[in-house]
C-alpha cells in the first residue's frame, strides 16, 4: 500500500488543523466564547452542527488516499512491488464493495433486474428478450417474492445495529457532558439518527443498489457519497484561498489609505464588474489548458483531476474575494479611527503590531460570517458550473456532474429519476444544514443582525 497525498487532501487537512488551532485560541476570549455558546445553546445549532460535522468527517475519510500493492508477479520476476493505478480512500474501504459492484447498465433502486432488455436464453435454451437479473443485487434471494420481506428484515437489522453503535458512541458523551448547560440531547438524537441511517444504508447496500445504478452500472448511492468530499472541499478550500488575499488587501486599504486604498479599490471594482461566470469560465479554461499541456506532472489520472479541482477552488476564491475585501476595508477604516488605535499610532507603535493586536482580532467575525455564508453558495454553484461545462473534471465524482449527466435521463421513458434524486438529497441536506448554521452564526456575531447584501 502506498499513500497518495493529493493537493486537495493536503489543503483540507491543513485547513482542519488551522481551524482547530483557531478555535482553541478563541476559547480564551470570553466575548467569543459567549457568542459561540449562543450558537450552540440553540437546539437547531446543535443539530445542524452535527450534520455538518458528519459531512466533514465523511469528506476527511475520503481524503486519505492510497494505492494498493498489486499481487507479486506470478512469473516471479523482479523484487519490486508495483501498485494499482486506482486510487482508493479510507471511505472506499469503509463502504466495502459498494463502489466495485458494477452492473451492466441502469437499474432502478432496489431492483433485481436490469433496466434494459437483453437477449437471454430461457430454461429450454430458446432466445428470449427480457430484463436480465442483476449480477450483484439480491443474489441471495431464491425468488423475487422474497424481496420485500428481505428488505424489511434488513431494515430492522440495520436500524438495530445502528442503535447499538449509536448507544456505544453516545454513552461516553453522556457521561462526560450530562451536566453541561448546552442542549446536548439534540446532538445525541441527531447522531443516533445519522448512525442508524448509515448503518441501514450499509446493511441494505450489501444486498441491493439502494439508489439504483447509472448508465455504466455504478451504484448511485456510492457516487452520491463520493460527491460529499467534492462538495465540502469546494466550499471550504475556495474560501481558504480567498482569505489571505481579501484580508491582506482589505486591511492594507483600510489602514494605509491613500494610494494603497485607491489601488485596492480599483482592483476589486474591476474584478467585481466582470460578469462572474465569464471570468470563471475563462480562468478555468486557462488552467485546463495548462494542465493538459503538462500531463507528465501527474502520475495517475486522479491527480490530474485533483489539480483541476484545486485550480477551480482557487479561481472561485479569486473571483469572490472582492465582497469580503470591501467589508474588511470598511471595518478597518472604522477601527483605525477609534481612539485607542489613534493613541497607539501617536505613541509610535509599529504598523505590524497595531494590525495584529488591534485590527485583525476585530475583523475576525466578518471573516467567520463570510466563511459560513459562502460555503453553501459555493456548493450550489458547483452544479451550475458543471452545467456550463467549466466545473469539476468529469472523472471526479460530484453532485454537479451527476445532475449534469442526469438531466437528459429525465427525458427517457420510463423516466430515470434516481441519479437526480440521489444528488439532490445529499446536496440539499448539506446546504440546508450549512444555511441554518450560518444564520445562527450571523445572529450571534453580527451585532446588526441584518443582511446588507441585496437578495
Amino acid at each position: 500500500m502506498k499513500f497518495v497525498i493529493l493537493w486537495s487532501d493536503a489543503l483540507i487537512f491543513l485547513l482542519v488543523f488551522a481551524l482547530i488551532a483557531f478555535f482553541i485560541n478563541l476559547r480564551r476570549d470570553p466575548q467569543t466564547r459567549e457568542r459561540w455558546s449562543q450558537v450552540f445553546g440553540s437546539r437547531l445549532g446543535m443539530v445542524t452542527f452535527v450534520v455538518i460535522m458528519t459531512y466533514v468527517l465523511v469528506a476527511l475519510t475520503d481524503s486519505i488516499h492510497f494505492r494498493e500493492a498489486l499481487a507479486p508477479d506470478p512469473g516471479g520476476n523482479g523484487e519490486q512491488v508495483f501498485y494499482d493505478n486506482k486510487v482508493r480512500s479510507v471511505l472506499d474501504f469503509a463502504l466495502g464493495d459498494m463502489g466495485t459492484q458494477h452492473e451492466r447498465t441502469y437499474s432502478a433502486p432496489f431492483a433485481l433486474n436490469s433496466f434494459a432488455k437483453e437477449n437471454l436464453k430461457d430454461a429450454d435454451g430458446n432466445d428470449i428478450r427480457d430484463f436480465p437479473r442483476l449480477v450483484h443485487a439480491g443474489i441471495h434471494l431464491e425468488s423475487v417474492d422474497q424481496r420485500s420481506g428481505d428488505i424489511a428484515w434488513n431494515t430492522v437489522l440495520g436500524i438495530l445495529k445502528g442503535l447499538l453503535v449509536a448507544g456505544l458512541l453516545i454513552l461516553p458523551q453522556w457521561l462526560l457532558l450530562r451536566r453541561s448547560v448546552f442542549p446536548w440531547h439534540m446532538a445525541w438524537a441527531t447522531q443516533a439518527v445519522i448512525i442508524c441511517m448509515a448503518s441501514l444504508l450499509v446493511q441494505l447496500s450489501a444486498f441491493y443498489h439502494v439508489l439504483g445504478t447509472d448508465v455504466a452500472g455504478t451504484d448511485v448511492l456510492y457516487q452520491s457519497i463520493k460527491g460529499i468530499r467534492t462538495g465540502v472541499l469546494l466550499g471550504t478550500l475556495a474560501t481558504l484561498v480567498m482569505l489571505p488575499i481579501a484580508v491582506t488587501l482589505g486591511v492594507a486599504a483600510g489602514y494605509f489609505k491613500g494610494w494603497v486604498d485607491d489601488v485596492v479599490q480599483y482592483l476589486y471594482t474591476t474584478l467585481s464588474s466582470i460578469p462572474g461566470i465569464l471570468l470563471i469560465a475563462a480562468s478555468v479554461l486557462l488552467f485546463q489548458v495548462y494542465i493538459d499541456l503538462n500531463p507528465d506532472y501527474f502520475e495517475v489520472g486522479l491527480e490530474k483531476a485533483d489539480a483541476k479541482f484545486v485550480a477551480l477552488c482557487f479561481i472561485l476564491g479569486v473571483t469572490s474575494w472582492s465582497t469580503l475585501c470591501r467589508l474588511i476595508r470598511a471595518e478597518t477604516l472604522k477601527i483605525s479611527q477609534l481612539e485607542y488605535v489613534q493613541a497607539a499610532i501617536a505613541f509610535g507603535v509599529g504598523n505590524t503590531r497595531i494590525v495584529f493586536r488591534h485590527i485583525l482580532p476585530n475583523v475576525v467575525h466578518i471573516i467567520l460570517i463570510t466563511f459560513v455564508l459562502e460555503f453553501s453558495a459555493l456548493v450550489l454553484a458547483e452544479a451550475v458550473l458543471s452545467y456550463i461545462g467549466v466545473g469539476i473534471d468529469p472523472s471526479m465524482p460530484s453532485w454537479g456532474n451527476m445532475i449534469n449527466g442526469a438531466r437528459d435521463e429525465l427525458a427517457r421513458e420510463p423516466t430515470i429519476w434516481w441519479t437526480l434524486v440521489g444528488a439532490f438529497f445529499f446536496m440539499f441536506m448539506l446546504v440546508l444544514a450549512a444555511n441554518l448554521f450560518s444564520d445562527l452564526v450571523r445572529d450571534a456575531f453580527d451585532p446588526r443582525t441584518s443582511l446588507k447584501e441585496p437578495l
Partner: protein
Amino acid sequence: MSRLNILGAGLFSICLLGACSEGAWNNPNAPESGDESIYYSVIYAQPPKHLDPAQSYATDESLFISQIYEPPLTYHFLKRPYELIPLSLASMPTVEFLDRRRNPVEPGSDKIAFSRYTLTLRDDLRYQPHPAFAQDDSGAPLYLFDSAEQSDAYRIIPDFPESGSRLLSSDDFIYGIKRLADPRNKSPMLGFMAQHIVGLREFTYRLNHMDRGPWLDLDEQAMLGLERIDERRFTITIHDTYPQFVYWMAMHFFAPVAREVDRFYHNPGFKEKNLTLDWWPVGSGPYMMVKNDPNSEIVLQRNPNFHEDYYPSEGAPGDEELGYLQDAGKRLPFIDRAHFRLEREVLPLWTKFLQGYYDRSGEVHSNTSNYFDQAFSVSPDGLELSEEMRSHNLTISQDVKPSIYYYGFNMRDPVVGGYSEEKRKLRRALTIAFDLEEFGKVFEEGNIISAQSPIPPGIPGAIEGEAGINRYIYDWVDGEPRRKSIEYARQLMVEAGYPNGRDLETGEPLRIFIDTQSQAMQGANSAIPNWIARKIGRLGVQVEFRPADWNRTREKLMTGNTQIFSHGWLADYPDPENFMFMLYSPESPLICKCDGTNNSNYENPEYDKAFERMRVLEPGPERDAVVAELVEMWRRDAVWMITYHPLEFFLNNEWVYNTKRHGISKDTLKYVRVDDELRLQRQAEWNQPVTWPLLAGATGVIAMILPGLVAYRRRQRATLKSQG
C-alpha cells in the same frame, strides 16, 4: 395585502383562460390557417453558423443549404448503394482526358495530365424571388446603395418590398467556384481544391495581391480551369485524373451563386446588419429562407420558381413495402413551409416531439448518440419502443452514417506501436478486451455497428456476412460475428510478452494512455473512461486517460505525441477511397507536416502501393480485390483498437411520410409529405391539460392565506379588547 394576492391569482387564471381559446394550452406553434402544409422540426443545440455554400462545412448547416441551393449533382433519394444523379444538370457530366499540351488522350493512358469535365445545365432553373434581382424600369438593379444611410430601413430580407428572379446560366456556376478561391470567403475547400482545379492557386494568389474595393466582380477575373462554352454549358479542368471528383459536384461547394446577389450583399452597411450571403442564402432549390433568427427559428418557404421535379418511381428493394413509393411520379415538393426551432435541452425537445409538436426527431445529429433518441433501443429483432411511444404509432427510418469512430494506436509508439508479431498480438488483445458490442449497448443505445473494416456497410468494398468479418477479432457463431473470448485475449497477452498484463522481465504492469477529447467525455459520457478501464483492466493492464480540448488533442496528433487516441471521420462521398486514405502514409501528420488524416502514422509501403492503384481504378471487381487487400492489411496490423459506424435515425410521428434516411445527402425535405389533418387530431388527443394541479395550487394559496387572516383578526381583536 390579501386582496393583492387574490388579484394576482386572478390575473394568472385569466392568462390561462386566454390560452385555452387557441386549442391546446401548451401548443408552441402559431395557429394554422389550414391551406398550407407545414412541417415542424428541430435545430439541436447549436444554431448553424454559416450558410454560405462556399464556407459551410457542417452537416447541420447543409440541412438548410441543401434545400436552397442546387449543386450540379445529387444522390438518388431511394436507391442503395448510393447513386449519383443530375440535379441542376440536364445529364451526368462528361469527362475527357488531356495530355500536357491539352490534346485528348485515351482513358488510362500514362500521358494524362488533365481531366476536363463538361457540364450541361437544365434549361428551366430559375432563382427564388429575391430583392437582388429586382430591377427598376431601365433594367438597372433597384437596390444598389452608395451609403449605409440609404438602406437604413431594411434590416432583414423580407423588408425589401420588391423582388425579382431570372434564369440560371453557366456563369452562375463558374461564379460559385471562383468564390471558393477568393480568400475573403474563407472557404475550407480552398486548400484542397487548389490541389485539383487548374489555375485555382494562381487565382487566389492574384486576388490576394490585388488592390480591391469592397466588392470584386469575379466574372471579370478569369480562372484557367473554368471555361464557359455557352449559356448552358461550361467545363472544369482538373489536374491528372481524380475519378472521385464527380462526388464533389454533389456538394454545395459547387452550387451556383448569382453575381447580382454577391453584388447586392456587398452594399454598404449590409454586413453590419448581417445581411450577407452567409446569412440569407439565395438559390434555385425547392425552398427559400424567409426567416432566419437562428437564436430561435429558421423558416423555409416553398420557392414559387422551383423547376419541375417529380417523386422517383423506382427505389431500393423493400421500399415498396415501406410505402416509400406511394407518391411516385407526383410533383415536388409536398410541404409548403418548414419551421426549424432551436432546442438546447433534451427534455423540452423530446417532450414536444411526444406531444406531437415536432414531426420528426433526429434531423440533425452532430453527436449521434445519447442525445435524443433515447427512448428506444435497437435489438436484433428490431426496434423496441416504450409503452407510450408504441401507442403513438411512431415509425423509424434508419441508415448507416457513412462515418467511422475509432480509437487508434499510434504505430510509432514504442509500447503499442510497431509491426512485429508480438506488437500485433498485444494490439489485438487490447481490442478484444475492449468489448465494443457491450459499449454500444450501454453508451450508444445499440445504435452502432461494430466495424469489420474501415468501410461502412452500403459503400462499395464493404462485405456483408461471414466473408466480411475480421477473423483476428471475431468468430462467426450462430450466423453473427462474435468477439473472441477474454481468455483468448489473455493468451495473446502471454504471447505478446505481457502475461497477466505484467512485463515479462520486470514484472511491471503495462500502462496504456488514451487521449480523448474532453468535450466528448462530459455529461452522460463521463462514465466512459471508467468503463473502458474496467474492461481493459481484465487483462491486468492499467489504463490512464488524458482528456484535452480539441486544439490540444490536435497538437498531440500532429506531433505524434500520443499512444492511443479517439477520433472520427465523416466521409464526404460514398467511396472506399475516402476511408482507406486514412492509412496512406503520405497522409501521416509526421510525414506530410500537415493536418493529415493518417493519425495512426501507419507506414506500410505495400499498402501505399496498393492504395495508389485503387485510387485511380474504375469501380469493378478489380478494384474490389485491391480494396480487400487493403482491408486485410489493416486487420492484420490491428491499427485501430475499436472501430464502429454509428446508425442514424429518423423517428417519425405517424403523419409523416417519405422519410427514408439518406446517409449522405440532406436535400430530402422536398420528398417529405405531412398529413396536417391527422396531426391536428393527434395533437388535440395527446395534449389534454391536467387541471387538478391548478385547482390544488389555488386551494393551497387560499389555505395559506385564510387561516393567517383568521388568526390575524383574532389577534387584533384580542389586542383591541385588552386595550379597551
